[in-house]
């Protein structure tokens, strides 16, 4: 290409040299024109001179000049023939005129000579002008010629330049095309990297070609994909966080989540509302301690008399131990805080404003107290009324009987039927009063049940003897059918008797000249039961009558009351009694075909005590086992972690304790109620109902509050545990020796029984009773002495406490006693002759109370047996009032 360009340039330059030669030739011609003009000037000079001088040399010179001029004109004629011809014609004119003038001058014709000479001068001017115009003409041509050359050269050079530029451009283009295949993908990669760095994941990544750049692009693509994935996860996490935040925003309680470093991670507005004065503090990142300190320093909380340091310490301990529930007072409001550790070490705290709840509880409590007072008043009124009504009735009945006897003795038999009517009406009224009293007691839940051994056949004999006159009255017969091996049963004799009498007196009333059958048999179903069927051949009942048969004040038909008498309460009371005894009554009847009542009453002797419980009895004989009259000691092990549970169980069994396991709080409470274990080990951290909640429930239950509870926890919160009623708080992992020694102390049943009683007679009774059980009694005569005794001796197995004593009474003693954690496991049974007021009962809260006077020795025997783990010979109810 370049070669071609240069060749072109060369050819162009060669063409130019020809033009330059032409220009040189033209310059020579212009010179000739000038020379011609000069020659014409000489010629004109010489001719003029000749005209003046008329000399021959002048003529010769003129001729010579003319000749030179012609020479030049010949050269010019080659180029400009027309102009040269015009010059020659004018010069010839000029020469002719000048020659003529010379001739005239020569002839002395001066005037003619002058005019001819002037004519010659005109022609010479014309020649000059023609020559000048010729020269100018030639010069113009020369200029044109030069311009042409310059233009040619310029254009040639320009073309060459363009060609060169084209070449360069082509080169550049080629380079560009070649480089492009590398640089573009690279630039795209760099752009993509920049984009990714700037966080723009939408940036295009070049297609992967099968070279190194392709590999890079592929890798970058993978990188971008992983970034996208990361962003997707982040978006999902954010969406989840928003969902959670929205969810916790909707709950009515204050919610806050602390991370493992106890910094706020998440909270809702309700949490802020709990602490109106802490809005600046409550934000993500604030630590629990900072919140606490602000709470205290801004006096937002009622410290309950504690120092701020103590309060903060206790609050922190609770928080660290995830101490379940706590209630605090913020200003005028009560807040319940529930804290739980979560997996990964954080803590969730839920704050409930329970001010209204507390208020409602207070109101409820007041209402309950009011209603209790009202109920007691009602019961008292009924008891009084029945007593007051019965006393004159007894007189009416008694005197009408005496009068009947007197009438018989004195021969006044005609009076007897009337006297019998008075007696009958009195007995009827008495029956009504007794029924109403029974029903009101049942309905007020005041009906006591007294379980004893009952000889079934002798009970039926008694019933038969009582009911026979009534049966005979309507011409009926009574038949008893007793099954085999009825033997004894354990139940409330009086109530069963009353049930039978009620049903039989009904049957007697509604049957005329028929037959009443009582059939009794023992059923060995899943629980031993006595079934008594009372059938008659009486008037029977319709379905509608059956429907309201057992309702109080409702006989089968209102008119029956008039015809048959009765209160309409008998069957209602009977059903209540049957149910009180764990049984029931049912009836089947058809109008005109008689009725059949079926009473089933469980035999409570055979009540399964522990058989249903998941006790594994495979262990070797326990040290405190049956041979010395004591039942084995049962420890309830509560832990949600099977490994911890098994470890404790194994250790306890090795020491001879019987163990029962509970996997959670609810199960623990259920088993504790069923089983009444001797001690409980209680894990703190459990799902759902945690250890603290279980502890609270145990201590609030009168039947369970005396069971010593050992808390097992990962966090060192012994103070809280003890203050909540735990016998001890042990830190996981539990030291076996420590646990065993603790249990031995807590369950020490070899200690004496401490009797606190000022009355010598009662002391003697108790001493005798306990002595018969082979146990020792330590006796003190008032509360102060009892405290001294406790301070100096190991804990007793049981304290029997009189209330009314000189110096320090039972209530005051209990105040001090209850405040001592190490005595907490010692059960206290209150013995009193005093009718306790509700307030006093409240002070005793959950103590077993034995009333002096009646069966004190038996009750004490039962209480002692329970406390030292010996089965009482005859189990009675725990609370005798």
């Amino acid at each position, binding site marked *: 290409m370049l070669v071609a360009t240069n060749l072109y340039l060369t050819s162009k330059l060669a063409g130019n040299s020809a033009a330059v030669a032409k220009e040189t030739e033209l310059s020579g011609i212009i010179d000739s024109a000038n020379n011609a003009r000069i020659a014409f000037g000489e010629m004109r000079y010489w001719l003029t001179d000749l005209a003046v001088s008329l000399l021959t040399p002048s003529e010769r010179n003129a001729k010579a000049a003319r000749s030179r001029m012609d020479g030049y004109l010949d050269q010019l004629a080659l180029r400009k023939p027309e102009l040269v011809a015009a010059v020659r014609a004018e010069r010839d004119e000029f020469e002719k005129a000048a020659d003529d003038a010379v001739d005239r001058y020569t002839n002395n014709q001066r005037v003619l000579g002058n005019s001819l000479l002037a004519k010659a001068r005109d022609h010479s001017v014309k020649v000059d002008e023609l020559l000048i115009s010729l020269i100018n003409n030639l010069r113009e041509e020369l200029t044109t010629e030069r311009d042409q050359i310059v233009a040619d050269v310029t254009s040639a050079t320009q073309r060459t330049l363009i060609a060169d530029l084209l070449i360069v451009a082509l080169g550049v283009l080629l380079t560009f095309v070649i480089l492009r295949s590398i640089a573009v993908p690279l630039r795209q990669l760099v752009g993509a990297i920049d984009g990714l760095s700037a966080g723009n994941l939408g940036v295009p990544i070049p297609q992967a070609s099968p070279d190194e750049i392709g590999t890079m692009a592929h890798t970058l693509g993978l990188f971008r994909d992983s970034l996208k994935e990361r962003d997707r996860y982040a978006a999902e996490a954010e969406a989840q966080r928003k969902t959670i935040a929205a969810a916790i925003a909707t709950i009515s309680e204050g919610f806050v989540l602390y991370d493992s470093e106890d910094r706020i991670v998440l909270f809702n507005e309700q949490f802020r509302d709990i602490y109106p004065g802490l809005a600046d503090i409550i934000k993500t990142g604030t630590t629990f301690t900072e919140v606490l300190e602000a709470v205290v320093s801004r006096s937002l909380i009622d410290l309950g008399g504690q120092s701020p340091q103590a309060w903060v310490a206790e609050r922190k301990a609770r928080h660290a131990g995830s101490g379940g529930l706590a209630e605090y007072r913020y200003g005028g409001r009560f807040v319940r805080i529930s804290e739980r550790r979560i997996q990964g070490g954080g803590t969730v705290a839920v704050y409930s404003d329970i001010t209204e709840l507390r208020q409602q509880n207070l109101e409820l409590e007041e209402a309950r107290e009011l209603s209790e007072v009202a109920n007691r008043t009602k019961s008292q009124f009924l008891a009084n009324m*029945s*007593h007051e009504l*019965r*006393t004159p*009735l*007894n*007189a009416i*009945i*008694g*005197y009408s*009987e*005496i009068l009947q*006897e007197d009438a018989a003795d004195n021969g006044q038999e005609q009076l007897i039927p009337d006297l019998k009517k008075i007696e009958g009406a009195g*007995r009827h009224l*008495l029956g009504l009063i*007794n029924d109403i*009293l029974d029903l009101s007691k049942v309905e007020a839940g005041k*009906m*006591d*049940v*007294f379980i*004893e051994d009952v000889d079934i056949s002798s009970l039926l004999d008694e019933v038969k003897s009582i009911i026979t006159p009534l049966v005979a009255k309507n011409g009926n017969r009574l038949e008893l059918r007793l099954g085999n091996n009825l033997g004894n049963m354990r139940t*409330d*004799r*009086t*109530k069963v008797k009353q049930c039978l009498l009620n049903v039989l007196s009904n049957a007697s009333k509604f049957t005329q000249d028929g037959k009443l059958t009582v059939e009794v048999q023992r059923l060995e179903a899943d629980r031993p039961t006595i079934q008594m069927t009372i059938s008659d051949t009486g008037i029977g009942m319709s379905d509608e009558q059956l429907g309201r048969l057992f309702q109080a004040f409702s006989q089968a038909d209102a008119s029956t009351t008039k015809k048959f008498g009765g209160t309409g309460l008998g069957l209602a009371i009977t059903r209540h009694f049957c149910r009180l005894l764990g049984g029931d009554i049912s009836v089947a009847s058809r109008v005109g075909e008689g009725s059949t009542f079926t009473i089933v009453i469980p035999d409570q002797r055979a009540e399964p005590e522990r058989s249903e419980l998941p006790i594994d009895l495979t262990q070797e004989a326990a040290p405190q086992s049956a041979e010395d009259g004591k039942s084995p000691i049962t420890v309830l092990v509560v832990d949600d972690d099977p490994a911890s549970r098994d470890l404790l169980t194994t250790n306890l069994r090795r020491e001879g304790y019987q163990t029962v396991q509970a996997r959670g709080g609810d199960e623990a409470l259920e088993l504790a109620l069923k089983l009444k274990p001797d001690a409980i080990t209680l894990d703190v951290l459990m799902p759902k109902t945690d250890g603290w909640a279980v502890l609270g429930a145990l201590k609030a239950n009168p039947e369970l509050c005396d069971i010593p509870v050992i808390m097992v926890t990962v966090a060192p919160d012994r103070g809280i545990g003890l203050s909540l009623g735990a016998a001890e708080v042990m830190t996981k992992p539990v030291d076996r020796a420590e646990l065993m020694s603790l249990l031995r102390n807590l369950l020490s049943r070899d200690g004496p029984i401490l009797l606190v009683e000022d009355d010598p*007679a009662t002391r003697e009774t108790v001493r005798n009773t306990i002595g018969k059980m082979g146990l020792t009694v330590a006796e003190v005569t008032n509360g102060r002495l009892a405290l001294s005794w406790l301070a100096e001796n190991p804990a007793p197995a049981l304290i029997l406490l009189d209330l009314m004593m000189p110096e320090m009474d039972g209530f005051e003693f209990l105040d001090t006693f209850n405040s001592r954690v190490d005595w907490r496991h010692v059960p206290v049974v209150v013995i009193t002759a005093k009718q306790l007021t509700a307030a006093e009962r409240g002070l005793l809260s959950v103590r077993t109370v034995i009333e002096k*006077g*009646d*069966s004190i*020795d*038996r009750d004490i025997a039962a209480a002692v047996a329970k406390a030292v783990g010996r089965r009482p010979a005859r189990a009675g109810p725990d609370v005798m009032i």
Partner: protein
Amino acid sequence: MMAKILLVEDNEMNRDMLSRRLVRNGFEVVMAIDGEQAVALAQSALPDLILMDMSLPVIDGWEATRRIKAADATSNIPIIALTAHAMSGDREKTLSAGCDEYDTKPIELPRLLGKINALLQRSR
């Protein structure tokens, strides 16, 4: 020989009725109107049998029974407790307080006479 019965009863009409009927049935009757008198009279009159109402002024029937049974001179005298309307456990309670028998008011005289005679026969 007529058996001597100590009737302890604070209600005048009850006391009157029961005493008259007992006399009519051939018993010698001495009467006390509270627990304290009952304990004293048991000591001084040494009855063959005591009918003891349980709700009494001064000291109640439970305590009077305990004291009578606790004193050597009177410990062998059979006591029948009389309680108002039969309550669950009354019988057990009275027996464990030291009473030998138990009956409920209002009195069914034939039933009570049966119990009295049974106890008197047993103690002879």
